[in-house]
């Protein structure tokens, strides 16, 4: 069954349209990356899915039902929205215990998830004193409490050090491999390229792309060959399909091998012959450049 289904979701805050007519599905067994520049509406969409914000239009279903209609929702959906949203005076253990009790989850799960996220040692410390990395782990522990089949993480790697990032990436992959649906937002393409199977890209609240990562990479890796030569004009004439720039020639329709063979036969010396593959980041920037909220 489709884990999350958004249908024509809209959210208006006064005069800003934060989310506009957004429809997509999140499927189980894979990591779905939710990508968009700052202010694109990722967090707003997640809050609507989780029943925290009321959509101005459209609807969101989780495991086939509106979130508020789930009995013991944490056993179906686990979410990390804002790691710092914890009462600082409460210990990690009590924080998780209160959450577990509300959904009839046995108290023994608290120790288990604390172990999973590596917070066992600090379970009795006040959460207010936690570093961002520890808070993030506590938030993930809360999401995992009910052993849910659907997970929603809003920018889980924000502010983490490389160790923490690797840890979350591994965890997310593992959760999907176990057959769960993982919906994770980020504004970094490079991050998503390493963790996600599927991408939903939005900009200014609108859907820009809904595609598999492979397809996205395939589509965006239409690289070109950069050719430099003291006799560039002759090369351009020779290959015919090139795009002449002041100091180099760009060729998309031929491989370096073909170009090299051609110029060698004509006896034209080359200074450079490189295949340039645009980075995923560049492809993503290209895709979202029209929808940036703030441009510098």
């Amino acid at each position: 069954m489709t884990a999350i289904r958004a249908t024509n979701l809209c959210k208006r805050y006064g005069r800003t349209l934060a989310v506009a007519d957004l429809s997509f599905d999140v499927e189980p067994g894979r990591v779905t990356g939710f990508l968009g520049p700052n202010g694109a509406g990722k967090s707003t969409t997640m809050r609507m899915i989780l029943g925290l914000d009321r959509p101005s239009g459209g609807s969101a279903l989780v495991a086939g039902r509106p979130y508020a209609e789930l009995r013991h929702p944490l056993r179906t959906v686990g979410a990390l929205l804002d790691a710092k949203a914890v009462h600082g005076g409460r210990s990690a253990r009590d924080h998780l215990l209160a959450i577990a009790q509300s959904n009839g989850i046995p108290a023994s799960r608290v120790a288990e998830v604390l172990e999973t996220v590596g917070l066992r040692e600090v379970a009795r410390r006040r959460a207010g004193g936690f570093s961002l990395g520890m808070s993030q782990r506590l938030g993930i522990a809360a999401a995992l409490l009910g052993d849910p089949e659907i997970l929603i993480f809003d920018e889980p790697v924000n502010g983490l050090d490389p160790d923490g990032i690797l840890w979350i990436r591994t965890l997310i992959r593992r959760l999907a491999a176990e057959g769960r649906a993982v919906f994770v937002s980020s504004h970094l393409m490079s991050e998503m390229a390493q963790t996600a199977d599927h991408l939903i890209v939005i900009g200014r609240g609108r859907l820009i792309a809904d595609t598999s990562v492979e397809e996205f990479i395939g589509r965006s890796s239409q690289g070109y060959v950069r050719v430099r030569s003291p006799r560039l004009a002759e090369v351009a004439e020779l290959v015919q399909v090139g795009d002449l720039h002041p100091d180099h020639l760009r060729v998309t329709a031929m491989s370096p091998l073909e170009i090299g063979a051609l110029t060698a036969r004509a006896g034209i010396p080359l200074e450079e012959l490189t295949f340039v593959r645009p980075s995923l980041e560049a492809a993503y920037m290209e895709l979202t450049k029209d929808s940036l909220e703030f441009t510098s």
Partner: protein
Amino acid sequence: MIDILRSEWTKIRSVRSTVWTLAVTALLMVGVAVLLAAAYKGSGDDPAPVREALMMSLAGAQLAALSMATLGVLVISGEYRTGGIRTSLLAVPRRMRLLTAKIVVFLAVSLVVCALASAGAAAAGLAILRPPSAEAGEAVRAVLGVTLYLTACGLFGLGLGTLVRHTAGALVSAIALILVLPTLATQLPGDWGRAVADHFTTNAGRLIVSGQDNGALGPWSGFAVYLAWIAAALVAGAVLMHRRDA
């Protein structure tokens, strides 16, 4: 629902502000009783009759009302301040259930603690004052009155906290409605002003502490009027909580 109650109990017992506000409540009740009783005793007057002795012993209620209101405010505003309300609503998306559980757990905690604190205050005060005739019935009625009054003030705070969501704003409105405005209301001119003052929040609610009439209302009808004020705050808060984005 029992799951949610258990969860709210864990929440309320696991933060320091609960312990502090309850400790302050107990301290105010007993402290004021001892201070007033000792001062009266030291003045060398005749032993106070039981009714006055009880009033002196329970005089801390006016201040303790504010510490209980503070606890009531914090039960909900603490979650809005930290963003913990989102965590709570993810766990319990039926918002009215969450609010109901908070109210029930607060009531239980408050009734127990306030009963103990006011019984302690009455015992301490009476032990010092030693009124000529001690009627147990009178003392029990007074302790019960104070317990209900303090708990109602806490509930008022909870309602205002739900409505305002910010701790500071809710506290200011609680102090205004419990302490400041009732006093100001007594300055209103004419019959109409008098009626407003008599029915104004704690002017009506306090009658259950003294066990006397204020002309317009008796102890129980006064308390009922106070509960109507509290219900108004709670209902308004509940409606907004239901409607607003968390």
